[in-house]
């Protein structure tokens, strides 16, 4: 009786710096970063991501960032949409409420990583989750830290926590 329906799960990766990190990071930070990555998890026909406004969702590729720079196939999940929604709702009330956003420690990629693990048991590529520590390990990153700490990356989407 294993009629497991499975839903594909994809990870959309965006370079928020639009290529500038690749060009300038070596000079600015002293190390080469190919991009400043923002990610969203696409499942059940929607893209989910975490930003300054909390967990948001929109049509895949529907944020202001446009089409993703790359897409990673995370496999598939059996988790149906209703359970997933429950899950996200609990997350948004606890570990991923909008005030928990921190651009270095608890950002969109942290969220994507957790959600991807929940859905598929796999983690997202490490170059993405390693990015904050890469940046912070440079002196310039340290200098910028207080500044960036106050920022939140928030591509406009349909906020699932907002009025719909």
């Amino acid at each position: 009786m294993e009629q497991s329906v499975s839903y594909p799960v994809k990870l959309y990766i965006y370079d928020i710096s639009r290529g500038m990190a690749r060009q300038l990071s070596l000079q600015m930070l002293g190390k080469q970063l190919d991009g400043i990555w923002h990610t969203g998890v696409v499942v059940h026909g929607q893209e989910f991501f975490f930003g300054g406004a909390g967990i948001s969702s929109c049509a895949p590729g529907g944020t202001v960032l446009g089409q993703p720079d790359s897409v990673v196939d995370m496999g598939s999940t059996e988790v149906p949409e209703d359970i997933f929604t429950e899950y996200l709702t609990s997350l948004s009330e606890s570990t991923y409420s909008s005030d928990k956003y921190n651009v270095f420690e608890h950002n969109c990629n942290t969220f994507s990583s957790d959600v991807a693990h929940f859905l598929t048991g796999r983690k997202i590529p490490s170059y993405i989750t390693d990015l904050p520590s890469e940046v912070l390990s440079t002196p310039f990153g340290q200098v910028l830290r207080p500044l960036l700490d106050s920022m939140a990356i928030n591509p406009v989407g349909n906020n699932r926590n907002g009025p719909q």
Partner: protein
Amino acid sequence: MAEQGAADPGNNNNNNKPEESEGTIIKVTVKTPKDKEEIAIAEDASVTQFKEEISKRFKAKQDQLVLIFAGKILKDGDSLSQHGIKDGLTVHLVIKTAHKAGDGSSTSAASSAPTQAGSSSTSSPATNTTSTTGSSGSAPPTTQTPNILTGFGDLASLAGLGMGSANFMELQQQMQRQLMSNPEMLSQIMENPLVQNMMSNPDLMRQMIMANPQMQQLMERNPEISHMLNNPELMRQTMELARNPAMMQEMMRNQDRALSNLESIPGGYNALRRMYTDIQEPMFSAAREQFGSNPFSALGGSSESGAQPSRTENREPLPNPWGPPNSSTSTESGGGTTGSTSTAGATNPSVSNPLGVNPGSLGNGMFNSPGMQSLLQQISENPQLMQNMLSAPYMRSMMQSLAQNPELASQVMMNNPLFAGNPQLQEQFRAQLPIFLQQMQNPEALSVMTNPRAMQALMQIQQGLQTLQTEAPGLMPSLMTGGAPGMPAGGGVPPVPPENPASPPTNAGTNAAQQQLMQQMLQMFAGGGGGGGGIATTQTPEIRFQTQLDQLNAMGFINREANLQALIATGGDINAAIERLLGSQPS
């Protein structure tokens, strides 16, 4: 049925399990969105048994439990080993709430989210203070937020943050309100070293406060207030107060107590009343109008206009369109553009070139970046934004105070950590600071910024220069300035020392050189980009255009000044100059 583990660890240390099976006990972490627990269970237990344990631990009904592992939902009939669940692994749990899909809970989340968004955005600008002391001072612009990286180059998101409102004051008030409602934020802002820097400068504070028209009115009516402002001790104290909300409360309490004591003195009540009507009331109403109910907020943050959601002041890794000058102004975007424009190698602003854009350096550095371009594009597409920004009265007063106080401006700039790593930029900027400040005062400059077509034209010029650079590198050397050091852009044209406006410390020399460059550039353009980078002619435009001026005079254009400007703008082309003059006459 013997408990498989958790209940009596004493019994089942190792693999001695009574009959059930040879199951070893494994510890599996069960993780919900909200928390996680470690559950010990037999390795070959079934999912049902596992759920039993879980329902006890999490106090939920077994029916409500949904277990997920490796993307699969664990059904009751399965066993843990079937799914490969071993010791130390994590299984996800979702507890279904009574009403499915948790719409109820999402609404509560919804209400918290907007306030969060508000406060988080307000706090971002707070730190964003590096770029805007004022804004953080006055009211952490909600807008200022952060979307630094995201919004990068995308002003559309600004609208989402309320920037869409055409009324700047409204925006500012909103911010104020946000600030007031969250005392945390105020202290955060105050902690920011840049703000502190600014606040510790009583002169500046006084200037700012005086620049506020309401305050001015107030002061006229009540000279005591101006005395108060002029008393540095008091100013400092007030600033300390603003910085430290606890202290402020103390103060207020003391004041209240003192006031109530006054009441008991014969005639004291009347005096109090008088005091209130004369001083406090107008002050409060002025304050309220402008800032919200807290009069101290006026002191704490009159300055800059509420900012805009700044996009970023992050200049380095991602070039900051708003540049440093905006650090003092809360206005991010527009100021930034001009900031970088001027930083890229300012030339003396003239009528035809109100922004003092040095065309030679346009092709360089910052301007070259795609981000910059997209920003410019956005600016040109969104004139409303610029207008909003520029029309804020605070912007002007801010600019004025900055202009009068270049020391402060440079101080502010230097504090900007973005500059810290780049002494050349600092130098460059310092040299151009006065020019930049002046040009911000120039209403023409401002109108150019708000004119999308003008911005577009500027962009085109820049693009043209870029192409020129690649196509005819030989043409550029004499025109190129140092640009932004370290930028890979443009093929690294060597700065020509004598003509490099960025390096010389003295502004006088700089101005002349810049002006000459400008002239040459314009001439070149006018002349269709003819040969070589024209060499400096030390003649002033007047002399050069002498013949043309005479001709214009003869034709009846008496206004020598206007003629000269027109000629400069058109590079000596009489017909074009005439058209210019005719075009501007109806004004």
